[in-house]
Structures are given as C-alpha cells and as structure tokens.
C-alpha cells in the first residue's frame, strides 16, 4: 500500500476501528482529533472534527454513507458523499461512487476507480 498524502504515523494514530467481521450501521462523530478505520461493512455517517482521518480499507464496503474529515483515504468500496477538508486519496483498488468534495490535496492512484462527481478546491 503506497500512500502519497498521508503519513504512516497518522494511520497508526487511528483509535476507532470497525473490524473486518463487523456489520455496523449508524453515525460516528467527534469534535476533536480522531481517526477511524473501516475494515468491515458500514452504513451511515462519519463526521469528524479537526485533525481527523477516515481510512476505508481494502475489502471494506461502505454504503449509503456520508464521510467528513480532514483526511479521507479509500482503499475499498465507498458509495455516498465524501468531504475531505484537507486531503483525499484513493489507493489500491479503491472504488468510489457518489460525490467527492476535496478542499486541498487530491491523489488518485492508478488502480483506483472513481464513479463520482468530483469537486476540488484549495484548502483554506
């Protein structure tokens, strides 16, 4: 897994995990620095505050979703609306369907697939 925009330290700091066996529906939110990694299946919203990261792992399935964080990294499947306030990165065999709004840096790796309305603007 090659990441261009996200440091390994940022990934290591993630303290909320949906494991590969898990089936989760609902809403995650945090007002402070936080990170969440989805390895399993998730439906719902993840809205995180400053210095936050959302990581969707390879083989993860995220549907009917709204994801909002400073940094969003997708390696699996996401269907829904994604808002990345600082950076968005699609890696491995990522497949994103829906809408992606990125304020700041964007990186789409060769193996990734986007079927999404993409909006990119400079970060503030």
């Amino acid at each position: 897994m090659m990441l261009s925009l996200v440091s390994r330290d940022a990934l290591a700091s993630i303290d909320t995990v949906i494991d590969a066996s898990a089936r989760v529906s609902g809403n995650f939110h945090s007002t402070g620095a936080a990170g969440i990694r989805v390895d399993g299946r998730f439906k719902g919203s993840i809205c995180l505050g400053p210095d936050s990261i959302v990581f969707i792992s390879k083989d993860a399935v995220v549907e009917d979703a709204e994801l909002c964080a400073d940094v969003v990294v997708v390696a699996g499947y996401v269907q829904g609306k994604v808002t990345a306030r600082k950076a968005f990165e699609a890696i491995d065999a990522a497949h994103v369907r829906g809408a992606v709004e990125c304020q700041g840096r964007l990186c789409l790796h060769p193996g990734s697939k986007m079927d999404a309305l993409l909006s990119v603007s400079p970060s503030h």
Partner: protein
Amino acid sequence: MTSEPLTWDVALQEHDLTSILTTVSEKHFSRIGGGMTFEGAFFTATGCDVAGSVKGHISALPASTAPVRTHPGSSVCGEIHSPHVALYGQFDGLVHNPVGVTIVGASATVKGVIRYRILRSDGALLDTNLIKVDNAPGGAAP
C-alpha cells in the same frame, strides 16, 4: 498475543481481572476510541472495545464468541449482547449474556438490566435488575 479462543470461564477461575483483560486485548477487535461518539447498531464476530460513547447496541454476531469490553471513562446507553462482557465505564441499558461471564469492574456504574449466567463484580456501583439465565449446555432454563 494469543490466538487461542477466549475461555473466560477458565480465566475467571484461574486469573485475576488484569489477566482476563489482557486476554481480551486483541488487535483485530473493533474499537470505539475515546472522544468518539457512535449511535447505531454494531455487530461483530471478533470483539469490541469501547472507550468512547455509544447510544445503541453492540452485539456479537450469531455463533461467534465476540467479547465486548467498556473502558473507564466510556459511556454506553443501550444494549450489549455477547457471551463475554466486561464493563468498566458507565452503562445504562440491557446486558444479555446467558452463555459466558459478565464482569463488572470497580470503575463501572451500571443501571438497567443484566441478564447473566456468571457474574463477577468488584465493588462497582450497581443499580440494576439482575436476572439469572443459563443457556449453557446442560444449564437450567431461565
């Protein structure tokens, strides 16, 4: 980290709480970190550690032995369905564990209903309706 299946019955008899908690600290578990709030339904076959806040329910998937543990400082309002439950934070709701061990640590504050087969409490604040159930092989009917 051991890859052996959890055997809390044995752990309860042979070890202290610290040993039991070490046993359930599994890197592949789900985890809801401190500062994170989750509202909804959470099903897992491997286990779930809760350090943040939960409104809803956390359940072991059918045929799994996924443990659920809440940490000091955590808050859960809702239901926990699991064959292995350890409460160390605030809990208000229903714990349903007719199979394995339910542990209520000294730091826990618990309201609601605990349906248990084996219960261990180490000085926790309990304001609960305790209901003895037993779905273990050869166990008595509730």
